[in-house]
């Protein structure tokens, strides 16, 4: 049966047999970095195309259909155009920070990739605080956005950055609380253990209604955290041109654009890991035969299937709902999501202590 674990193991054995340990380790680092960058590039191309196609279908249009079959190479052509474009730095900008900001946003997205389990035994770094690590690192992304907004020396950028900051800081709370509900049920922060705990069913089904509420809140909060419509006030086109990346062009703009999609992928991967079992196939309690059939589908397919389902859900939101105003946005968080998730956490704790979950 196809599995990524076997491939990685044999590569590691071969490397350590051929080179001395230090060199082998360095080669492994290089391979991981190369794979991460390749994943980023492919994801960027696929997700942007997917977004445009989904948007088109929902708006009864065709979407990109000229470059290649069904417009397949549209995003590749767009990327080529962005690479060739001049990267302007506006007059009066803080040049150092202006050029640094897109890289910070990108590096944060890369760091977030580390603890995600893509398939059975295929994970870069199984850190023992996995989920907390993701929460901590993702709070760094706001710095890059604030930096970009301030360094551009532009009022739209500044306003966009401030909105984005307020938004991310407040929605981090409910995202964190809904993550904690699953941590309470699992009793561990480690991603591999969270996945292993869903051996006999995903938490979304095992955790009764509180888990479903937590899932809904998580999806809403991460949509806001990634600055996507209906929470895209930070780059509201009609009000702020493009928000914090108004002044960026060429490859630096492309990095912001790419980071947005990578962040969507990462939050959806985390959501899939926490609530939908990560790479764990759909198992139902003690139905041995059913579970065995499900195991024949490779775990990497399960992982990407779930993640892309969540990405589709977020895209569905984007092309259905109108943009919120800033006061509505903060009302939603502080008057609805936060109290509900606090109450929900209490409920889940009771369930976990009394052992009511399956």
């Amino acid at each position, binding site marked *: 049966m196809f599995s990524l674990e076997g491939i990685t193991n044999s590569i590691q054995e071969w490397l350590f047999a051929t080179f001395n340990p230090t060199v082998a380790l360095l080669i492994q680092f290089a391979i991981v970095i190369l794979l991460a960058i390749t994943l980023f590039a492919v994801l960027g191309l696929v997700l942007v195309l997917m977004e445009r196609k989904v948007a088109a279908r929902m708006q*009864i*249009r*065709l979407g990109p259909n000229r470059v290649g079959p069904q417009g397949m190479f549209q995003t590749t052509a767009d990327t080529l155009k962005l690479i060739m474009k001049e990267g302007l730095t506006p007059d009066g900008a803080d040049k150092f920070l202006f050029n640094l900001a897109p890289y910070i946003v990108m590096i944060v997205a890369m760091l977030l990739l580390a603890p995600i389990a893509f398939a059975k035994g295929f994970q870069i770094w199984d850190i023992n605080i996995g989920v907390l690590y993701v929460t901590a690192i993702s709070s760094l992304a706001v710095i890059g956005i604030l930096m970009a907004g301030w360094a551009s020396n532009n009022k739209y950028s500044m306003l966009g950055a401030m909105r984005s900051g307020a938004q991310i800081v407040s929605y981090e709370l409910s995202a964190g609380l809904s993550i904690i509900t699953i941590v309470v049920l699992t009793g561990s922060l480690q991603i591999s253990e969270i996945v292993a705990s869903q051996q006999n069913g995903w938490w979304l089904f095992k955790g009764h209604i509180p888990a479903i509420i937590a899932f809904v809140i998580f999806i809403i909060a991460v949509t806001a955290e990634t600055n996507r419509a209906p929470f895209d006030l930070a780059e509201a086109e009609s009000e702020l041109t493009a928000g914090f990346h108004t002044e960026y062009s060429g490859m630096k703009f492309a990095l912001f654009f790419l980071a947005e999609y990578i962040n969507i992928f990462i939050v959806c991967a985390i959501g899939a890991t926490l609530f939908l079992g990560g790479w764990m196939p759909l198992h139902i309690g003690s139905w041995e035969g059913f579970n065995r059939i499900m195991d024949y589908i490779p775990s990497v397919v399960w992982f990407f299937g779930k993640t892309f389902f969540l990405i589709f859900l977020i895209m569905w939101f984007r092309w259905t709902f109108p943009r919120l105003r800033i006061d509505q946005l903060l009302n939603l968080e502080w008057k609805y999501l936060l109290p509900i998730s606090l109450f929900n956490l209490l409920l889940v704790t009771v369930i976990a202590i009394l052992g009511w979950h399956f």
Partner: protein
Amino acid sequence: MFIKEYIKDIFRAVKSLLTGMNRTGYYFVRPREIITEQYPDNRDTLVLAERFRGEVVMPHDEKNKHACTGCTACELACPNGTIKIITKFDISPEGKKKKALDTFIYHLELCTMCNLCVVACPTDAIKMAQNFEHSVYDRTRLTKKLNNPGSKIREGIE
């Protein structure tokens, strides 16, 4: 009660959001509903919406007759002076003088396709056509004469 109102609010919000998602989801799973026309490729089979307005035309029947009395109601109705009507006096068989249309001048370059002239016309002599390929190299070619040369008013229209 406050809590009751709060929970009701949440349910109403979720319901309205789901209604919206239902609509977009409906279109997502039904590619047949796509209304995009791939214009230059399907020029022969192009389907335009019924309400699309491309230009003002004056229909003539097979005997080269139109329904315009030259009353200038359309000229008066036009908000930006697109239509200019030149009238003449016909001599009827009984020897009576009668006002009639000489030239119906239509400035397409000024027209906003507002349809007010068609609404104003008492005899339905003009209507909106769907032709939209109007681009020309010379602006003067957009000034059109709508009545055919030698055309006459149809009998029985006052």
